[in-house]
């Protein structure tokens, strides 16, 4: 017997409302492809261009706790702001991010990253300097590559000193799409 969709949805909603979940996640449609979005009570844990749920489940379970459930309701707030962003109606996110487990350097870099405004860019070296270590451009590159919360933490706004796009963990074509959306690229 399969569980009727409505009943399944009701439980997943109730689980999110109960406050018992360590993390809830859902797949969110976007112009740059399907996104996996996961959030706990401290904020967003993960946004991924890779919708392979199995692997994310293991990671979330290790990172946040084993009470992980697919629950659209749990990520409603994130979905709404992402939708607004992609529709061009939102330029800044008003969402908490959960950075547990990252090194202090990574956290400093990501906090600085979050301050780069919509439609603007910074170079890897500039971001390194803002995070207090001007020589760490390469480490900043690595941090961008491993960014768990792309789009909301806008690593697509970080580019090479010569203006080249360099790379993007989600694929360069997505970086181009995001920078076009923000009017940085034509």
């Amino acid at each position: 017997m399969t569980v009727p969709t409505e009943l399944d949805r009701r439980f997943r909603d109730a689980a999110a409302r109960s406050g018992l979940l360590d993390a809830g996640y859902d797949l969110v449609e976007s112009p740059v492809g399907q996104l996996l979005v996961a959030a706990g009570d401290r904020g967003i844990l993960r946004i991924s261009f890779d919708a392979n749920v199995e692997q994310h489940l293991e990671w979330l379970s290790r990172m946040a706790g084993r009470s992980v459930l697919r629950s659209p309701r749990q990520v409603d707030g994130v979905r709404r702001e992402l939708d607004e962003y992609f529709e061009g109606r939102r330029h800044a996110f008003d969402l908490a991010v959960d950075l547990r487990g990252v090194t202090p350097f990574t956290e400093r870099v990501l906090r600085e990253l979050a301050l780069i405004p919509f439609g603007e860019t910074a170079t890897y070296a500039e971001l390194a300097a803002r995070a207090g270590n001007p020589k760490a451009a390469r480490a900043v590159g690595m941090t961008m590559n491993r960014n768990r919360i792309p789009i909301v933490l806008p690593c697509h706004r970080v580019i090479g000193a010569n203006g080249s796009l360099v790379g993007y963990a989600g694929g360069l074509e997505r970086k181009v799409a995001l920078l076009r959306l923000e009017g940085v690229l034509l």
Partner: protein
Amino acid sequence: MMGTVAIPPFETFYVEHSSEVLGLLRRKLGRDRADDAFQETFLRALRAYDRLDHGEHLRAWVLTIASRVAIDVHRRTKPTAEMPEVQHEDTRPAYEDLGELTDGLPPKERAAVVLRYGYDLTYDQIAAVLDSSPDAARQAASTGVRRLRKEARP
């Protein structure tokens, strides 16, 4: 920790057991009342999930929670009726043997004895299932065993 089965993410556990739980609840309660009981069962499981020590017997564990929820629903809807017999659909031999053996016990003692000795759950886990404390679970199991010994005496 040799032989310990890892506890899967709740999503995996839910997907694996949700249809069987719903089937059991529908047989016990009928379609309408089964829907609320379904949600209650998995919320109780979720509440207890981070206290589990290992991933063994999760199926038995959640079916037992479902049986308890069904009993509670019966109680709520028919307050004067006699407590219904817990009907176990499980086919595991240990459980079956114990199931028959413990037929005459009060439901709480029966559940505690079967979960402890049939499924080797810890008192913490049993407490979660029965919605009580580990001490109360231990007490229920030992009272149940004493009662069984008394009955077994010729």
